């Protein structure tokens, strides 16, 4: 990377002179000065011009909505009635004492742990398997990502039917085996499990591919040397593979955290609405936000919840980043 740094190009006489480095001796000629000015500007400004579209779009579609949402959250603001009055931080104060919010937060975190822990472990094992020389390796590597490209709504509808209480396939199977059916929606833990299964089915392939990419970067001779030393497959996995991909694991944890805090589509379709079950047993924070803003038309409070989700994601990301730093320095 360093050699591409224009100003720092070493002048060994052979290499084509870097731009600006071979400037002619000072010339009073205006045109030449202007051209040099242009090239200076080009050098300084064009990188910013090239990256500007992203930041302009981010400003319009990312930053502005975030700030405007904060502005709304400081008001009593109905969706149809519009702005009613400035209430300061009242919406946030209400949120702190709101049982429904804490219930939703507990659900979100509960589903998160139920989904992510097995998912990442399974993804590691799968990636390790795909990293070996197995038959039809290419086929399996492509196949594993297919769930990720399917429509999330279509998937949730199918899983919703599988997990039906009376006519669902899973309960049918359980009853055929002589076990009682499970009330997937009404039992809190069962509903979390059903949603976690949907999440895992969809994201498992994605994380597996990321791990696989990281594992490909591990030098093969490390495994060979270990094998010669008599290390078993399992030992190689725990003492070479896992430590080598640890930063990647942290990366997937961060990505999953951000995704899970916004968990919405799967539970909404599972429970046919923002309520998350008859008693909110699987209502996530994002669902509560929609219920308040769209159902109860309380846009101000909905915005406050949106901001708290945003802050929570920031906090979780920071915790993750700090712990990554710890792990790195420990190595």
């Amino acid at each position, binding site marked *: 990377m360093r050699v591409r740094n224009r100003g720092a190009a070493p002048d060994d006489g052979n290499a084509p002179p870097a731009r600006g480095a071979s400037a002619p001796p000072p010339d009073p000629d205006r045109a030449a000065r202007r051209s040099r000015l242009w090239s200076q500007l080009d050098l300084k400004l064009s990188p910013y011009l090239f990256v500007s579209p992203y930041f302009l779009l981010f400003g319009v579609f990312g930053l502005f909505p975030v700030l405007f949402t904060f502005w709304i959250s400081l008001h009593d603001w*109905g*969706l*149809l*009635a*519009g702005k009613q009055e400035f209430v300061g931080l009242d919406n946030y104060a209400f949120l702190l004492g709101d049982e429904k919010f804490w219930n939703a937060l507990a659900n979100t975190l509960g589903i998160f742990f139920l989904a992510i822990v097995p998912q990442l472990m399974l993804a590691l094992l799968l990636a390790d398997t795909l990293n070996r020389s197995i038959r039809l390796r290419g086929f399996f590597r492509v196949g594993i990502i297919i769930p990720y490209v399917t429509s999330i*709504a*279509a998937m949730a*509808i199918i899983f*919703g*039917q599988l997990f*039906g*209480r*009376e*006519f*669902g396939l899973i309960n049918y199977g359980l009853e055929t085996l002589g076990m009682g059916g499970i*009330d997937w929606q*009404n039992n809190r833990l069962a509903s979390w499990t059903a949603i976690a299964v949907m999440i895992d089915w969809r994201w498992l392939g994605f994380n597996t591919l990321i791990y696989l990419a990281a594992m490909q970067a591990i030098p093969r001779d490390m495994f060979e040397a270990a094998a010669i030393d008599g290390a078993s497959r399992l030992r190689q996995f725990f003492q070479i593979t896992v430590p080598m991909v640890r930063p990647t694991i942290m990366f997937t944890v961060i990505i999953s955290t951000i995704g899970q805090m916004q968990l919405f589509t799967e539970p909404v*379709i599972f429970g*046919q*609405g923002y*309520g998350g079950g*008859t*008693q909110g*047993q699987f209502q996530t924070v994002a669902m509560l936000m929609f219920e308040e803003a*769209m*159902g*109860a*038309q*309380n846009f101000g*409070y909905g915005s406050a919840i949106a901001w708290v989700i945003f802050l929570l994601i920031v906090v979780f990301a920071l915790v993750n980043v700090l712990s990554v730093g710890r792990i790195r320095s420990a190595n």
Partner: protein
Amino acid sequence: MSKHTRGMRSVAAAVSSGALLTAVACGNGGGDGGDPELVIETFGTFGYEKLLQEFEEDTGITVEERTYGELEDWNEQLTQNLSAGSGLGDVVAVEEGILLDVMQSQDSFHDLYDYGAGSMEDHFLDWKWEMGHTPSGRLLGLGTDIGGMAVCYRTDYFEQAGLPSDREEVSELWQTWDDFVEVGVEFSESDVDAAFADTTTEYSNAIMRQSGDVMFLDQENELVIEESDSVERAWDIAGRMIEEDLTAELEMWSDDWTAAIQSGAFATMPCPSWMLGQIEENAGEEGEGKWDVARVPGDGGNWGGSWLAVPEQTDHPEEAAQLAQFLTGPEGHLGAWEARNNLPSSPETLQSDEVQNHTNPYFNDAPVGEIYAQGAMDLEPTHFGIGHFAIQQSTNTEALLSWEQGQADREEAWEQAVQDAERIAENN
């Protein structure tokens, strides 16, 4: 109007958002001096396909209908686009549960008096006409259909249970809701392998609406859920049905509910006229001739019904108002009745031969026209209030159902209902 199952809902949402994009891209109209193109937005089944064709032929104005599968989705879209100030069609359907919410932004709609709709007053049932007005007296919407109320039941199960199965006798059997529960108990003691009802949630809804009074909110939009006689009565009847274990404990419109209609897992369900199409669709050929329609216990009642309104956002208010008047006029009402059994909100049409003599072959040739029209003529409208739809969802669909499904006892369920209602009412 009817709703669809879960699956249909998302498909419909996907399709409609696609339609939305196209409409936005095309700028929603001709604009180069030619005839304008109108967009009408509805939900469920309004039965407008043929009528729109007629309108196109008569006026040369092209009309595109955008339909949302489920009412809930459409309500949300309507609210969002109203507050955003763009994205709505030229004519939109507003359902009764959300009518007062929408009237909060009354300036977002054209006053239909400005387009000569005032002359239609005599055509409508008085209350339907009245409810289309904003508090300031602007005519916001013209009435489409009303729900009417009846009970659909499975004749074969009634026979098996040793109950009468003829619709007249069945209607005699349950004059009151207490009778209804007793019939249910008798049914459940027989050896028929089916529940008496699908769920209590919509029966309670029907009972509340029969009172012709207030439900959750009074005329001043104050929450009266705890003092409301109609709500108390509905919870009492529903409670007895729960205690006697008369229901299949299904959530209405869920996949399980649809599958249960198909497999015949329950014997009765509340049946506004638009529900006939739902049953026919879900029960399919196998159910033909097995279902029949009896009178509802108590004094009639109403469930469902809409108004057509012209949003301020439209570029063609004149033509849009023309379309709304056509669809809610005599011809439009009759067309919707013939296509989908959507009960007209006009006394004249209700008494017409086309409605009165209409029988439905799927339901044992039941004289559905007569059954529904009879109740509709002397219907007392129920006052809803702002936020009604959301409160009804949380009270009936969530709180009552959690009691029915054994997740809460009566006290807990009631507490949940009151708390949620307070929360919603506070914001409105």
